[in-house]
């Protein structure tokens, strides 16, 4: 397998009510893009079926540099973890066109 440049993939799973806040913050912190998909799920706050406005959950994925990844995760930790249903994780991936991220 070829060796490729690496970047971090940050994934944030959160209630849809704060999707707008989160994506604005993500871009402000230096990411160049993100992708969102709708999920349903279960966690410590019970089940979130996605059937109506307040029960929607989104999964946001951001491909970015390790520095931006740190900034995003720290920001999520300080600003959102306390009061919102949020899960976040990160891992390293090999990318094409690393200069894009």
């Amino acid at each position, binding site marked *: 397998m070829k060796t490729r440049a690496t970047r971090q993939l940050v994934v944030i799973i959160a209630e849809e009510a*704060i999707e707008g806040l989160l994506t604005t913050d993500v871009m402000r912190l230096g990411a160049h893009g993100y992708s969102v998909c709708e999920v349903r799920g279960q966690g410590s706050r019970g*089940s979130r079926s996605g*059937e109506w406005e*307040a*029960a*929607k959950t989104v999964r946001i994925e951001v491909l970015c540099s390790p520095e931006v990844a740190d900034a995003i995760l720290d920001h999520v930790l300080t600003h959102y973890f306390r009061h*919102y249903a949020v899960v976040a994780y990160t891992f390293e991936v090999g990318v094409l066109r690393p200069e894009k991220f």
Partner: protein
Amino acid sequence: MAFDPVPLFFVLGFLARLARSDLKIPGQLYEALSIYLLLAIGLKGGVELAKEPFFEVAPKAGVTILLGVLIPLVAFPILTRLGRLPRPDAASIAGHYGSVSAVTFAVALDFLRAKNVPFEAYAPLFLVLLEIPGIIVGILLARMGNLQTVRWGPLAHEVLLGKSIVLLAGGLVVGWLAGPEKIAPLEPFYFVGFKGALSLFLLEMGLVAAGQIDALKRAGVFLTVFGVVMPLISATLGFIAAAIAGLSAGGAMLLATLAASASYIAAPAAMRIAVPEANPALSIGASLVVTFPFNILVGIPLYYFVSQQIIG
């Protein structure tokens, strides 16, 4: 005895979900129906509004807004004193009850139409006017003392340009600009089909409400009782406001229903942003799982009965 089918659809959905049936709501059908219902309510109101002189409507609008400010101010001390709830939770819940539920209003409209009771046909304007003030009062109650902590920008956006306001107010304006004749060809779609769409939406609301039964458990006994008593208090305030505004029996019943109804769309979204430390399970448990069914099944017939006694 013949039952009104519309509330029965709610009961069907509620029981199906309680029994853990795999009947699911396509999320986008829910959204489509709510867009449709809000537009239909707004359009009808706008057509009627075009017929009314401004000075006839303005004072009634003023009274309505006052009602929206008053209800959360009444609810808040009940929640903090009797319910011993922390300020953010009490304020958030008060905001939910100060705002309104468009679907509850739709059921009341349908109820009056089925009984051929006349009412101020521009009543949807009351719905538009009542959505926002309660939410703002709720946020102010939560943030008293430290208003600078609120992210007012995104919030104003969320509140003033939320889906329901845009569709209701937009529908009003379109109906008003187009007038009865031009709206007539839209009747089969928006008005003849209204009751059917409402029935389907209530089926979905039954599924949603029963799906939030956990929230009710977390809300506890006090909020369950509150969810039944508060609408009665608000409806009383609504009748008083209606008397002041000089509404007909039908109009009074609609205003009482609006007052009694609690928001479960606009208010939750606004409160998540403005008062994140408030536990959404509490307000949703009370407004959606108790107050909404109470109004649909018991409240509306009750407010109708009262309106006929005191005004009709």
